[in-house]
């Protein structure tokens, strides 16, 4: 909170770069950070994340009760929670919204986050057509009861995620696709949409009907869609933008010396996938040898140089989870493993391999460095090839590659957001790898109510993933880089890079 009232004399108009044109403002459809960055200020879920430590705090729900077996949550909604048109926000708004989010026709990529709710998956898959079979119901106008299929330790964090936000289903039905135009869009967050000029700006203004409007200090926020980060940086230098959510990598040396530059650890991992269905990667010894032959430090310290952490594990430390050891750089062990697999002098010749990456200068430099390391350390032939993004997606999904560049960013603060993608039938697996024990552990973790035990299970899963079977090779942990003008207050560093405008204000410009 501000120490004095001096902020009241400034315009309270924040301008920031959102890096690209938002694809949509439909909370049930969105997937990318530019969209999520706007959604958390326009809408509010039952809970909302603390801006600093990201612990779920009361949002639309004033408080909640959790049953002893931790599967039934009863939320009490604030009576003063209103929509931006002044009408009351009720429990049935949540029921209708989740029904919409769970309908395949809505087109939500994140619909499966709702599957922790009893009956949600069956309804989504069309095995059940009656929505009342799904474990969500309005007990009263301001009381919502949610039954989960099994305890979910991070459920209150999910209710702060856009897929769980309420929308005005009546407006969606009335206006069709146009419901999110500024004239129609009814929201329940700290801000409302005032103008959306594609490729020019999105303007949010304070929502006076928001239950906590007295707390909100910003009057207006403009999000720019500049994908030319050099232009964005110039605007920052001219003090026409307060906050940059990304920096032009070509000028990183210069920017790093600027006092307004910030860099924080980020909840994402850069890694390589191995196509485990193709020789020689069918042999886990080969995959392990390649992991051992990679010096991640060289990449983070000599190529990236922004404080990225070299890692050999997938999931960052979160909610008490401590990553396992992983396979760190060990040239001799790598050579020995490759020889054990039958390759080397006097044995089979290791076939030439290729690293596939989507066109980008950064991916190229890393792929070339890794190819060089593998050549140097194992004496094998490695090349790198780039393809355009959509071809890359196609080739990785259809397993038309040998080794490919990958990344994953966690959606919520629980290790499952990283580990679930490598279960055998997950569409994001893309390595052809399936391990019955790993899948079994994933099921166990999903049902386990005791957090300490869950963390143990995750550690076992990670050991399989990055020490024993190695269908992937973790390389580094992302950082979040940007610039923040010194007169911006109430902006907290956090690992997920979420910054609700609700907490931000400006001091004397």
């Amino acid at each position: 909170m501000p120490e004095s009232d001096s902020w009241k004399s400034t315009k309270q108009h924040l301008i920031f770069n959102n890096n690209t044109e938002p694809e949509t403002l439909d909370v049930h459809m969105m997937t990318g950070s530019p969209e999520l960055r706007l959604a958390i200020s326009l809408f509010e879920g039952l809970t909302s994340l603390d801006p600093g430590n990201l612990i779920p705090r009361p949002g639309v729900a004033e408080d909640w009760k959790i049953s002893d077996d931790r599967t039934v949550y009863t939320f009490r909604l604030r009576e003063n929670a209103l929509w931006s048109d002044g009408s009351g926000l009720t429990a049935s708004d949540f029921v209708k919204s989740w029904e919409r989010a769970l309908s395949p026709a809505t087109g939500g990529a994140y619909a499966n986050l709702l599957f922790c709710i009893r009956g949600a998956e069956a309804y989504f898959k069309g095995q059940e057509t009656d929505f009342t079979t799904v474990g969500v119901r309005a007990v009263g106008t301001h009381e919502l009861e949610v039954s989960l299929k099994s305890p979910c330790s991070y459920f209150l964090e999910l209710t702060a995620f856009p897929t769980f936000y309420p929308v005005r289903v009546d407006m969606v039905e009335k206006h069709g696709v146009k419901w999110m135009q500024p004239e129609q869009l009814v929201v329940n967050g700290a801000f409302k949409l005032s103008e959306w000029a594609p490729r020019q700006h999105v303007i949010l203004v304070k929502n006076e009907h928001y239950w906590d409007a007295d707390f909100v200090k910003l009057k207006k926020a403009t999000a720019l869609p500049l994908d030319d980060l050099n232009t964005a940086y110039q605007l920052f230098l001219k003090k026409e933008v307060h906050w940059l959510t990304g920096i032009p990598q070509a000028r990183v040396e210069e920017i790093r010396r600027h006092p307004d530059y910030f860099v924080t650890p980020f909840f994402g991992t850069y890694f390589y996938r191995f196509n485990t269905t193709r020789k020689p990667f069918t042999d886990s010894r080969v995959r392990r040898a390649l992991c051992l032959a990679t010096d991640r430090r060289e990449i983070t310290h000599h190529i990236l140089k922004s404080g990225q952490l070299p890692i050999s594990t997938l999931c960052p430390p979160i909610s008490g989870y401590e990553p396992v050891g992983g396979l760190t750089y060990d040239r001799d062990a790598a050579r020995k493993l490759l020889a054990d697999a039958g390759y080397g002098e006097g044995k089979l010749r290791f076939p030439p391999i290729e690293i596939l990456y989507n066109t980008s200068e950064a991916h190229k430099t890393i792929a070339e460095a890794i190819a060089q390391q593998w050549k140097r350390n194992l004496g094998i032939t490695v090349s790198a090839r780039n393809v355009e993004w959509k071809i890359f997606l196609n080739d990785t999904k259809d397993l038309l590659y040998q080794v490919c560049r990958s990344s994953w960013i966690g959606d919520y603060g629980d290790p499952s957001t990283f580990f679930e993608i490598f279960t055998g039938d997950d569409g994001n697996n893309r390595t052809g790898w399936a391990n019955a024990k790993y899948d079994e552990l994933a099921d166990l973790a999903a049902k386990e109510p005791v957090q300490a035990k869950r963390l143990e299970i995750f550690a076992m899963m990670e050991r399989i993933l990055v020490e024993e079977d190695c269908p992937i090779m973790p390389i580094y942990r992302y950082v979040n880089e940007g610039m923040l003008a010194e007169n911006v207050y109430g902006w907290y560093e956090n690992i997920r890079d979420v910054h609700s405008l609700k907490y931000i204000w400006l001091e004397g410009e």
Partner: protein
Amino acid sequence: MLTLLKRLLYVPVVILLLVTATFFLIRLAPGGPFSAERDLPEEVEKALNAKFRLDQPMLVQYGAMLKDAVRGDFGPSMKHRERTVRQIIAQHLPPSMILGALAIILALWIGITVGTVSALKANSALDYFGMGVTVLGISLPAFVFGPLLQLLFAMRLDWLPVAGYGAPLQLVLPALTLSLPFAARFARLMRAGMLEVLSEDFIRTARSKGLSERIVVLRHAFRGALIPVVSFLGPAIAAITTGSLVVEKIFNIPGLGREFVESALNRDYTLVMGTTIVYGSFIVICNMLSDLSYALLDPRVRR
């Protein structure tokens, strides 16, 4: 008159061929509109495919697309699903056209001036300097020239805005960036054209009649010298209005160039069709007008 009619008749044929090729080529390219880093649930993908008719046989889709094309309505974009192709074109075509028109005017003005002066002072220091600059203009790509202009005029001198769209001043730097390579080509064509015309007999006649050099150049030589410039004008207009992708990005202009290129990269099938038809028709018409304008300038072509 007959040529004009004949040429007009070609337009729909060319467009049909273009539309057909685009329709099949974009579908042959690997990856679809809904593939993403985060895999879509199977049910959602199915629903989206049904919504956009992608679950139907290719020929049925083709027929439906032709019908859409005739109606001029391709429905919603596959990427920005809440906006229709029509809306996107209506919103982003005007900025491209305004910027393109400005750039063309600038390019002609700079090109013709530099080219004429260079020709009249052929092989002088001035000529060498002018032609040297044009080589730079042709070889300096927009992604270098744009940021340089930004640095000089917006950052150092603080005369013009860095980027954005809406205020007239915001158009100056992008229009200049966009016009540079074309101004350079116009200058070289103008110089060559002028030199050629000046050596012709009718100019000698005019000079021997005792006309002043000014009148010789402006009244007699200028028209003929313009022919190479005009023949390049059609392709130049087309290239300027379709090739503004980089400039739009650097200066954050909400133009159609980026929508056009990104729609192909995104495999946004509906938007690809819409933007291709707009740009395709535009290019065909520009080329046709450019051909027709020879006739106005050069009596020998008028037949």
